[in-house]
């Protein structure tokens, strides 16, 4: 099995580099040749997706450690190396990213300057995948930051009326958050220099922290530094205000990637770096972050209910759903963490699908105001049916993917932090309220004259939605292959935390309930 992991072809580096190289190739194509640009862009993302599938195929699910690892010195004097690797936690996120990008390039129509749009999208893909694969804190930070620029340009260049403001808000919020991340990770790197050099390597730092645990106060400070940056990115309740603006003003493709991948960078960072490097602080400060998560879930849901703009409904639903993921993460149990990872993937399927559908509604009607839309079910039944399935996935209906993740999260949280789980459960109810109420107003009733000519879903659109719908159903009905690959790595992470900080050991095995079919 390991032979597969030791392939000589640097698969992970290729997955990061191919989109970036494709972006340069797109930049070299003359602007007028839109057909060539579209083809090159699709080929690049498709090649990346193919490599991600190969990675998934060769992934050894019994091995909880990092696989396909590759390491090359980059800035030796600072102890920085190009260190990539994939484990059960990042595996599905990488695959999700690689699959979402071709869909995004195919899905929504681009009204101007396809060349720049495609190039930025490809750079964004390289940045996102790099963030998920990085095992060196410097490399992680570099990718975490580099993602901002393409997204900024996608919003500012192809967005709606208030795009400049929204793009800037997005950029400044995130960069300000990263300030704390950088200082915290530098502190960590310079804490115990080996051979006179600081080390940014994740494995080295984990080992150092295991052998010489930090003083509690220092650990909490560093943990908070990491968490501020990730909380902005997620975004968690008090710093979430950039997200609705960014989503509303972003072009459909931007929203799809923002919701599907970019927000996961925050939750992934929490899971991989903040919680794993500082397990004791994570345990001690969990109530604070659980509280923010629960506030985000209920607040996001309430605000989503009151929105007049369909896209803003989906945007606020993201705030609520990401709160769910953070809830599961800070439960610090196997179910909670596994559910959190799976829910990242689920949210990365259903929310992009919702944004695509809202984008197509806008393309047809040039409005997203709920009050302007009605009776679409009569004129576009297939469109309505697809919307229904995606909506139920987002609500968390049993049998669809959302349910599995949310159930695991609530189960895991209930074991350790009962009352947060109780309040969190209301989030599920609210999700039904805001999405179904919006659906009712948009799709039910008798269509007005403007809505009577609403075009049925085209074959291209059906083709774009098909993979997402299949995933929604497959994960909902048979999540085992997904959880089988996630759980060993989660268990390994819990074991590690348990060794470092005794307090983070799961309470008792009797609480852990066997889950999944």
């Amino acid at each position, binding site marked *: 099995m390991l032979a597969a992991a030791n392939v000589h072809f640097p698969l992970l580096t290729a997955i990061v580099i191919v989109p970036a190289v494709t972006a340069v190739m797109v930049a070299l194509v003359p602007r007028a040749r839109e057909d060539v640009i579209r083809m090159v862009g699709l080929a690049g993302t498709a090649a990346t997706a193919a490599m991600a599938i190969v990675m998934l195929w060769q992934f050894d699910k019994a091995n909880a450690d990092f696989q396909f690892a590759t390491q090359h010195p980059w800035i030796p*004097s600072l102890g920085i190396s190009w260190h990539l690797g994939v484990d059960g936690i990042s595996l599905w996120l990488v695959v999700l990213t690689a699959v979402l990008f071709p869909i995004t390039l195919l899905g929504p129509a681009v009204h101007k300057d396809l060349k*720049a749009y495609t190039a930025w999208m490809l750079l964004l893909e390289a940045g996102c995948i790099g963030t998920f694969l990085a095992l060196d804190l410097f490399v992680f930070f570099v*990718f975490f930051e580099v993602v901002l*620029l393409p997204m900024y340009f996608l919003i500012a260049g192809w967005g709606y009326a208030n795009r400049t403001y929204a793009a800037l808000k997005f950029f*400044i919020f995130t*960069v300000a958050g990263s300030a*704390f991340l950088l200082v915290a990770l530098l502190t960590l790197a310079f804490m115990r220099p080996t051979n006179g050099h600081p080390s940014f390597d994740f494995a080295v730092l984990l080992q150092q922290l295991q052998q010489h645990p930090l003083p509690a106060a220092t650990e909490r400070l560093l943990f908070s530094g990491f968490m501020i940056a990730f909380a902005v990115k997620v975004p968690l309740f008090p710093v979430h205000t950039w997200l609705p603006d960014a989503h509303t003003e972003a072009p459909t493709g931007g929203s799809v990637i923002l919701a599907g991948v970019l927000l996961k960078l925050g939750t992934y960072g929490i899971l991989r770096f903040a919680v794993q490097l500082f397990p004791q602080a994570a345990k001690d400060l969990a109530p604070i972050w659980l509280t923010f998560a629960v506030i985000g879930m209920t607040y996001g849901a309430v605000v989503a209910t009151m929105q007049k703009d369909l896209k803003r409904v989906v945007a606020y639903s993201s705030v609520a759903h990401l709160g769910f993921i953070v809830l599961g993460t800070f439960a610090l149990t196997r179910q909670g963490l596994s559910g959190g990872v799976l829910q990242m993937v689920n949210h990365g399927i259903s929310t992009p699908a919702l944004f695509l559908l809202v984008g197509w509604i806008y393309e047809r009607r*040039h409005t997203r105001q709920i009050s302007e839309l009605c009776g679409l079910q009569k004129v576009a039944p297939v469109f309505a049916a697809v919307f229904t399935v995606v909506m139920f996935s987002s609500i968390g209906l049993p049998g669809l993917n959302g349910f599995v993740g949310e159930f695991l999260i609530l189960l895991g949280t209930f074991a350790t932090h009962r009352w947060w789980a109780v309040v969190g459960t209301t989030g599920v109810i609210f999700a039904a309220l805001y999405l179904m109420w919006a659906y009712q107003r948009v799709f039910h009733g008798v269509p007005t004259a403007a809505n009577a000519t609403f075009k049925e879903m085209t074959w291209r659109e059906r083709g774009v939605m098909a993979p997402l719908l299949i995933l929604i159903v497959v994960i909902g009905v048979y999540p085992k292959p997904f959880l089988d690959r996630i759980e060993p790595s989660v268990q390994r992470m819990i074991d590690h935390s348990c060794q470092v900080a005794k307090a983070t050991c799961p309470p008792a095995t009797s609480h852990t309930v066997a889950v999944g079919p």
Partner: protein
Amino acid sequence: MSGGAALLALQPTIRVDVEYHLLWPVLVMLAGPLVVLVVSAMTGRRAPGWLWPALTVVTAAGAVAASVHDWLWTYRAPSPSRLLIVGGELAVDRFACWFFFIACGVVAVGALTFHGYVRRERLDGPEIYVLAMLSASGAMTMAMANDLIVLFLGLEILSIALYVMAGYHRRRTESGEAAMKYFILGAFSSALFLYGVALTYGATGSTHILEVRNYLVQSREHNGLVLAGMGLLLVGLGFKVAAVPFHAWTPDVYEGSPTPVTGYMAALAKAAGFAGLLRVFAYMYVTPEIVHAWRPAVWTLAVLTLVVGAFVAVVQTDLKRMLAYSSINHAGYVLVGMTAIHWANGGLRRTNGVSSALYYLLTYAFIILGSFAVVAVVSGRGDGRTTIESVRGLSTRRPLLALSFTVFLAAQAGVPFTTGFLAKFSVVSAAVGAHEASTYILAVLAMLVTAVSAFFYLRVIVVMYADPADTPTAAGDRRDTSSGADGVGAGQAGEATDGRMAAGGGVAVATATRSDATTLEVPVGATIAIAVCLLITVGGGLWPGPLIDAARRALLAF
């Protein structure tokens, strides 16, 4: 006290040899202007215009070769004291060599940007190249000065040439105004610097940097006279690097000077000023007491410079003024690196601080040269169009130029895979490496300021990529969040009114665009200069090891 003994042990034996072979970099840089003057006197107006920049580039290349020799020689020197030459008045260590490289690079790239500019503005002649090489020799003298008087000489050689260059565009009143302001405030700061030298001499009995240092190490004095001298030296050099609150001259001088000269000045004067600052503060004022005295002052300067530079840049509407405040902001980052110099475990820890500052200065020099090279092209005949609006739609007119400017601005904003990111990273990591509450605070502040600075860099980029027909009001400054059917209706109405309001501006922009399309030519020299700057900025960002390692080796002797 143990640290003092360690410093004493390093006391050098000063030799009176001149060691000409180490002086070649600055000798070549001084020979260049003489050659250019002689050739121009002999050929008169017959000499082709490209001859002067070509001679400048050749001179710079020669000086680089000589600097490489010096750099390599520092490894072979039998003892560190052999690096002190001309009777101990100059110190040719790798620190000095680093600034030789910066000065040569800046002169070569600067000369390339001058060429197209002086032709366009009909200012042809060899003088600007002569002045540039002279100022570079001044900067090189500052970098290797081992005596406060020599430092002052270098400062004056640099500054006087720069004053003249600031006023080089004789027909523009702004240029004359800039020269005047720069001269008066520069002379004022030189006087303060000299007074600091005098007080230091009064307190220690010497102006020789190593002797002052040895006196301080032995006596452990940090009385009022020593501190007053130190404060005045800090103020005098603070003027040159445009640290807040000594920055007042910067925006006007940057705005009024001929645009390529502004870039040249921003790169060279800042590097030379910091060469002097580091020589004095990381090399002379090194006893624990004195370090404890100057660090809070530099810390305060760093905070003020970072914050004021960034926040005032936000409200600028002129590109050159915006870049002026951004250059103030950059000086703040270098000061952050300087603040990382500290005493710990009985020794002066300065490697991280000094090397991060050195790395910052070199990478910044090429980023800012590239930025101003682009602005010089965009400003058009008469050097007048430098508002942010003048780059509107540049991406459709000159896509490659717009892309280059995007890279330079993104690098200044600290976007990864550019040297600008690594520069900020290295100064912040130096500050964090000092492990003190004050430096942690400074590190966080520096990173937060990056978020503010992103605002004004990105704004320019967005304008470049905006539709040329868009006026600022129509480009989406309306803050209505409802973009539905009502939004469309309201939007159309709004655009109608906006259109009326901005009609004058819109027409003006449209005409400007049309005329620019014909007159906006990118001279060959500027193209090469921008390409070189891009190569260093992006290449150094993708393959950072060599440059960072070199900066870590470019240490002060002793």
